């Protein structure tokens, strides 16, 4: 089996996610981009699992964990974004510099 195509797909998907996280102003899109990066990681995990083919299939289990965590994260993330929007009437991350305080 050739792993290269999977790794390239993962890397491209990750780069897309990174781009989205860094460049989008809308918090919802930033969250979506984070999901893209998690998906890229999952692709890599699964690909390397198949490539290594160990007995307990650790890669796939980790991928399942990540999907679960990503679901939870999106839930909390969207809730936060929703609250911020409700307070500020905006979901623009540039206006959110409370971390500076």
């Amino acid at each position: 089996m050739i792993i290269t195509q999977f790794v390239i797909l993962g890397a491209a998907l990750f780069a897309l996610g990174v781009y989205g996280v860094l460049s989008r102003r809308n918090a919802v899109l930033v969250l979506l981009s984070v999901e893209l990066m998690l998906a890229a990681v999952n692709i890599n995990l699964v690909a390397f699992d198949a490539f290594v083919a160990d007995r307990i299939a650790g890669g796939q289990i980790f991928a399942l964990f990540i999907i679960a965590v990503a679901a939870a994260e999106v839930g909390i993330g969207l809730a936060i974004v929703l609250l911020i929007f409700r307070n500020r009437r905006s979901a623009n991350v540039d206006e959110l510099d409370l971390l500076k305080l």
Partner: protein
Amino acid sequence: MTHLLASADRLLLAAEEAGHGAEEFADGGILASGAWLIPVVPMVVAFLIVFFGKRSPYKGWAMATGTMAFVALYGVVLFISNLNQGITYEGAVHLADIGTQSLGEHVGDIFAIEWGWMVDGLSIMMYFVVGVVGLLVFIYAKGYMEGDVRHTWFFASFTLFAGGMLVLVSAPNLIQLIVGWELVGVASYLLIGHYWEEHENSSAAIKAFLVNKVADTGLFIGAIIVGTSVGSFRFTDIMEAIAAGGGDTPLARFAFWAGLAIFIGAMGKSAQFPLHVWLPDAMAGPTPVSALMHAATMVTAGVYLIGRMFPFYMVEGFADEVRGIIIVIGALTLFLTGLLALVQDDIKRVLAYSTLSQLGYMVTAMGAGAYTAGLFHLFTHAFFKALLFLGAGAVIHAVHSNNMSDMGGLRKYMPYTFWTFVIGSWALAGIPVLAGFWSKDEILAGVQFAGSSESGFSIAQGGAGLANLVLVVAIAGAFVTAFYMTRAVWLTFFGTYKGHGTPHEAPRVMTYPLVGLAAGSALAGFLNVPGVTEFFTEGVGARFFEGFGGLEHHVTSIDWALAGLGSAAAIAGVAVGYTIWGPDRETQQARDTFSIPVLYPLLRHKYYIDDFYMDGVVRPVRGPLARAVNWFNDHVIDLVVNGAGWLAAVVARAVYFFDQRGIDGAIHASASVTGGGGGLLRLLQTGKVQQYAILLFAGTVILVAGFVSFAIF
């Protein structure tokens, strides 16, 4: 506090010691044991006058004169009873004991401070002279000082003056002698400077005090050496040590220097050449002061001291080698100062220089071993010199000037003064049968004897040749004496009056003392006519030297040849004086006919000795030397101190600079670096999540790139 009180047993012991070894003399009984009153009463009265004088009768005069009357009376009684039986007594009161061992090489000796009183021929003679002459001068002073600005103060100091002298002559030890010695000095300072409004007068007073002080250091040192070597300051102990003989005793070893030092002390008080300079200036005081100072107190002290220490200077192996110096100094004084009297215009200065000259005679006599003659001259001199000064005072009182150029012709106006003055000047000149003739003749005889082979006056002591030379000088001095006295008499009493106003005779309170003193001047000589009456010899001393065989020489018969020579010199002096000053001249220049080149300027400038002292010693010390020391103090020693302070300040400033800029700087720098760094880092904290994320990824990329390219794994 009983230890503070005088111990009576000591006193008795002292009396016993004094009586020991001199059994043939009476101890004088209550008369002698009460003689402590003689010095004490005047001292106490002097104090009382200061405090209560103003309110006492005659503003202190009565108290002072009463005191002197007491002393005179006591002196006369003692004098007469001494002539009858001879008294020797010594009383002492202990004031303090010091130490156990340090004085002398005698372990166990104690330096005892004693106050005592000596009653023997020598001191009795002095009590008599001070008392009698003093009394007359004090009486006279009532008239002279009438209406003076500081009348009471004058009599207080005057009494102190006499009292100091009595402390001096009553002293049985050197310490008390020094006390009296200095008291006389300070009293003379007060009296000479009596009219201190004038700068000149206070300067004269200082001069007298300082010249005396210079000489006193000699006395101090001499007394210290003698006292330490003998182990006691008492005269009786010192005489005992001398009687025990010379050899290698401590006293004998230092005797020459001690004798010289003590003689220097005597030179100061008795104004011997070259320490005579204070006496003529001492004329700044009121005339009674001069009379007392020149006759009875102060200047006689030096002669008295030599008399008191006489065996020390005579016994071989002690200070006998100082004798030559004493004779030479005496002879120089008697001749050189006699010449100075010739060129003075101030009548008191003439008399002052004549005093110097006569003191020279006394000192010469003491040096030659003619103890009786020297003291006899002191005795007779007291009368005629007091007389002359009081006479001069009466004249000054009348003319209101000290200068003979303002006088002349006073014979007519002041007959009492004139006649008594003439008697005094004849007595001084040594005209036969007056007092001065006898005493001066005995001095000449004494010097002649020293020059003879039988006297044993060895070369080391001076030698016969020296004595003969001095004899010639002494006879020449007699001539000079008569010469200048004739001049003084003539310029004052003869010719025409050149002053202002009409002179008048002095009041009785002043003339009576003159008459009394004139009687003394005429008759005192008969107390001691060699071979005929020897009251004075008996009384004053010769007998007291029996412990020292053949120590003292006194003439026992009149040497007609010598007496003739002496009186011939005197008469010649009068005659020459008359021929020169007899004709009355008008101008000052003409009156000073003594214009021999070189000699005259030399005499006018007093041999330049005063100038030498002033320009050579006093001014350099007071001026440049003192200023140099003061400059050294302020600029050198103090520079070290101030410099240390200054240096400390400079160092401190440097340290502070280092502290502020160095140590503190480092701390401040670290703080500001931290702060600055923090401020820079703060710029990164924008609070924008995406920027953080950029950094995060950039960091990751760099790390990964690093790991990959350097293959850290």
